[in-house]
């Protein structure tokens, strides 16, 4: 039914009756041609991709015994896409099927990395998903860096990594249909083994299943299917999560359907429904030609992100807690704290000076001295005058993100919490972009206000939904990941639909950039920091106690709820101010506070200043690299923090396992 509607939509003016007539054999040359060369390939691509992703999702979930496993959350799609893009930008022309093999290798490598990181972690671990999502983010950033480094060989919209099922002909589908078919046959052949895997390794072994082999086959087939889907249509987000989720919901009500022989086809059909439904919806909302401009993957990502949130909510609150990551056992002497603080400050100074010297035109220390003493020539003058706001805004934004991260981690008692991962950064970006889109003449203050509204809404949604069962639970992180994915997809959609030729705008709001910042644009962020830092330092005792447990602050007479709320508000404002100034730079709020705690222990009187210094250093270094590596062209700072920060996130996960 959906397929029939899908066939009728398109940019050509063809009536459904004509299409039906040509389907039944009546001669109508051009209608037939449209059906054969455009509508059917698109439909077939939708069917192929939906089937492949749906089945792949079920396989990954069964093998990992985790309902949140999917080609997206295990980074399989991101790995496959990175491999495809890498081959393309290095100018290696491959036959279509060999391109598919490259995608397979990329997807397999990513999956292997994620699974290895969580190996032995026990059944149903959320860590798997968190590691996978972080690696997917890092791989996505790496893909964007490649696309920016080699712009001639890539085409605009695809830089945002959203797949589309539109097809120029049936060759892609014809090439990969046999691959998907083989995958399906193999998957169906091992359904009994898959059923028994669900009972646990030991039971399955006793019942005669070779556990290792079944798992290996499951993963290989899942990666094969995702790689085929990515080769045909690019990364279509979250179908492999949503389709199996709906299938399992239905299976819970229908006796016998939990068996894989039924579950796999059901997930395949639902995958097709999700993909085609997204495409149909897109064309209903934006008109028949919209599919040319707005990729299908944007819609499926928003839809799938809702499922990620819903699934996270259904998980038992007590199932897993990130636990004791925050209150380190280390005792650190005051002397050491002071020394580390001074060292960090000195390092920041060095980095600031280095950042001022490096860039497209390299300066020497003497230039800086001349500039400060007002004796520099006009060019040095100008370079430093335009470069210094960028360096300062990078440092300020880094400090703001770091403080926001430190506060969120303490208040939620969750070591993985971070403004970008929680979707607050994404919400701020969406708010700011909405203001710019709807009201192009808006001044900087209004854009900042838009960012603040977006950040508040995202924070209310994420913390509101996660409140039941406590923030320490990793549910908070999963809900945040869902919200941040949806926000990023919505930003893509807004920019593609309203300002498709403006790549610089998209990059700023998706990856963060300090390009063209002037001194007056630093003011809101600087003021926010100047106000927030003393407020937070005066609340250091509350932060220490809230980070410890719920009972101690109560015993000591601190009203938990207002203290939490107040601190969260400060962190949301810090995030919004930073995002409005530099766009969506991620992972700083994660890396800096953790590094600070490792250096100076858990006391916030020391953690806050040191985290702020480290955050400033991190973003400054990333920005300087971005300004220098491919000068005179530029790389956005946020891409580099993600490439550095995501592995750090994974390492934190790895370490907190035992």
């Amino acid at each position: 039914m959906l397929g029939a509607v899908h066939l009728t939509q398109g940019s050509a003016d063809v009536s459904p009756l004509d299409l039906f007539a040509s389907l039944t054999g009546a001669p109508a040359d051009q209608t037939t041609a449209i059906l054969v060369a455009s509508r059917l390939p698109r439909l077939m691509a939708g069917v192929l991709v939906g089937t492949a992703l749906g089945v792949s999702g079920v396989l990954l979930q069964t093998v990992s015994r985790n309902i949140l496993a999917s080609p997206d959350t295990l980074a399989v799609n991101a790995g496959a896409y990175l491999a495809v893009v890498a081959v393309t930008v290095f100018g290696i022309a491959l036959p279509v099927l060999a391109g598919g093999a490259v995608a397979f290798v990329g997807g397999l490598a990513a999956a292997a990395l994620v699974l290895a990181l969580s190996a032995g972690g026990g059944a149903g671990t959320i860590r798997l998903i968190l590691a996978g999502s972080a690696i997917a983010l890092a791989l996505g950033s790496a893909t964007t860096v490649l696309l920016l480094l080699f712009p001639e060989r890539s085409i605009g919209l695809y830089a945002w990594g959203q797949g589309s099922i539109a097809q120029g002909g049936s060759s892609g589908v014809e090439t990969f249909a046999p691959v998907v078919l083989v995958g399906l046959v193999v998957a169906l052949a091992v359904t009994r083994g898959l059923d028994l895997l669900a009972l646990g390794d030991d039971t399955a072994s006793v019942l005669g299943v070779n556990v290792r082999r079944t798992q290996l086959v499951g993963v290989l087939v899942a990666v094969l299917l995702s790689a085929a889907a990515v080769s045909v249509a690019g990364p279509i987000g979250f179908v492999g999560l949503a389709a199996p989720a709906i299938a399992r919901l239905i299976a819970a009500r229908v006796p016998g359907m939990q068996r894989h022989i039924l579950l796999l086809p059901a997930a395949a059909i639902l995958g097709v429904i999700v993909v085609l439904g997204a495409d149909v919806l897109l064309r209903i909302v934006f008109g028949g030609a919209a599919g040319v401009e707005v990729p299908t993957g944007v819609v499926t990502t928003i839809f799938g992100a809702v499922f990620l949130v819903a699934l996270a909510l259904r998980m038992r609150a007590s199932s897993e807690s990130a636990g004791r990551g925050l209150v380190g056992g280390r005792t650190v002497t005051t002397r050491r704290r002071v020394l580390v603080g001074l060292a960090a400050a000195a390092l920041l100074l060095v980095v600031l000076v280095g950042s001022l010297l490096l860039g497209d035109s390299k300066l020497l220390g003497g230039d800086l001295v001349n500039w400060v003493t007002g004796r520099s020539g006009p060019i040095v003058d100008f370079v430093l005058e335009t470069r210094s706001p960028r360096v300062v805004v990078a440092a300020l934004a880094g400090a703001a993100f770091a403080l926001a991260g430190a506060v969120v981690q303490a208040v939620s008692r969750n070591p993985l919490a971070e403004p970008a991962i929680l979707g607050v950064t994404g919400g701020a970006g969406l708010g700011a972009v909405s203001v710019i889109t709807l009201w192009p003449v808006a001044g900087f203050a209004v854009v900042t206000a838009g960012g603040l509204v977006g950040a508040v809404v995202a924070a209310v949604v994420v913390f509101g939904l996660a409140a039941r069962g406590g923030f320490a639970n990793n549910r908070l992180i999963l809900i945040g990941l869902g919200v941040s994915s949806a926000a990023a997809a919505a930003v893509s959609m807004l920019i593609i639909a309203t300002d498709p030729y403006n790549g610089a705008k998209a990059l700023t709001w998706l990856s963060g950039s300090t390009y063209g910042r002037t001194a007056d644009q630093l003011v809101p962020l600087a003021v926010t920091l100047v106000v927030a830092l003393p407020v937070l330092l005066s609340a250091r005792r509350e932060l220490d106690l809230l980070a410890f447990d719920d009972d101690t602050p109560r015993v000591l007479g601190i009203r938990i709820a207002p203290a939490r709320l107040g601190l969260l508000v400060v962190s949301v404002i810090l995030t919004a101010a930073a995002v409005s100034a530099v766009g969506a730079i991620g992972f700083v709020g994660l890396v800096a506070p953790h590094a600070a705690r490792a250096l100076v222990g858990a006391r916030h009187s020391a953690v806050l200043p040191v985290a702020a210094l480290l955050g400033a250093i991190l973003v400054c270094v990333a920005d300087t690299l971005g300004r220098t590596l491919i000068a005179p062209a530029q790389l956005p700072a946020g891409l580099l923090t993600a490439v550095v920060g995501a592995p750090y996130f994974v390492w934190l996960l790895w370490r907190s396992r035992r």
Partner: protein
Amino acid sequence: MKKSPIALLSLVAASALVLTGCGTTESTADSDSGAATIEVVDDRGETISLTGAATKVVALEWNAAESLVALGVMPTGVADVAGYADYVQAAPLDDTVTDVGGRGEPSVDAIAGLAPDLVVTTNDLSESAITQIEKIAPVLVIRAADTTDGIGQMEKNLGDIATLTGTEDEAATLISDMEAKIAEGAAAIEAAGLTGTTFALSDSYAYNGEITIRPFYKGALLSDVAEELGLVNGWEGEGDADYGLGAVDVEGLTALPADIKYLSFSAEDGDVYTNELAANPIWTSLPFVQSDDVYMLTVGIWPFGGPASIDVFVDSVVDSLTS
């Protein structure tokens, strides 16, 4: 080429128009007053004033770079020099030109390093970047394109650049040559009995097997030039307000009238038509494909350029349709 009387007449008419309409007295008046200031009000409404003609000019968008080259003022810096070499072949840069980075985020350091007298950019560059660059040199901000008056906006941009670089005479020559070229082309089209023919001007690209066609709707610079040649734009609908562009897929081509002349830009490394579309049943079912009315224009015509690109475009269109 055999010239018809009408062609000659229109040539004469065009020349007369140029002689009366484009000669200015302003430049002589200025040079009399010694330390002359040149003033131009740009598309932001800002007044750009120079104490003498600019000679070291940086162009951050290719249309400005093309105009400068055509006016005989080789720019000192251009954004994305490599891309320019591929896409704007009508007015090549020489090897003295420095690359100042990407067109979206040009490097202000590189611009400053060139110590220009004038920087020309379009309103696509972010306002804060323009503010920064103004500290180095006066910035002329032109509106890249305007569908309400495609050719007029191009001429205004060329005129502003010419005024600030003291090359108004060259600009007048460029415009008159271009008008003569268009008149000559129109005459050739008329002589071939093609006046009133419907055309569709498009650009196309393919990615991962997916084909996107970019129609040049009414108001786009080059589709307006083609209309000046006596042709009629067959793309119904509206593009964006600046460039007059849109995006359709292969199906979207079925909306074009049957008796159309399909004109397409072509790229260095092969094109979508010979690669991806050759075996596409929709493409081959299109009446204008079956009647062999698809014309690939000369490689390297910048669709948003100035007189230099337009001259090549006119030649290419006339040659395609009349030979």
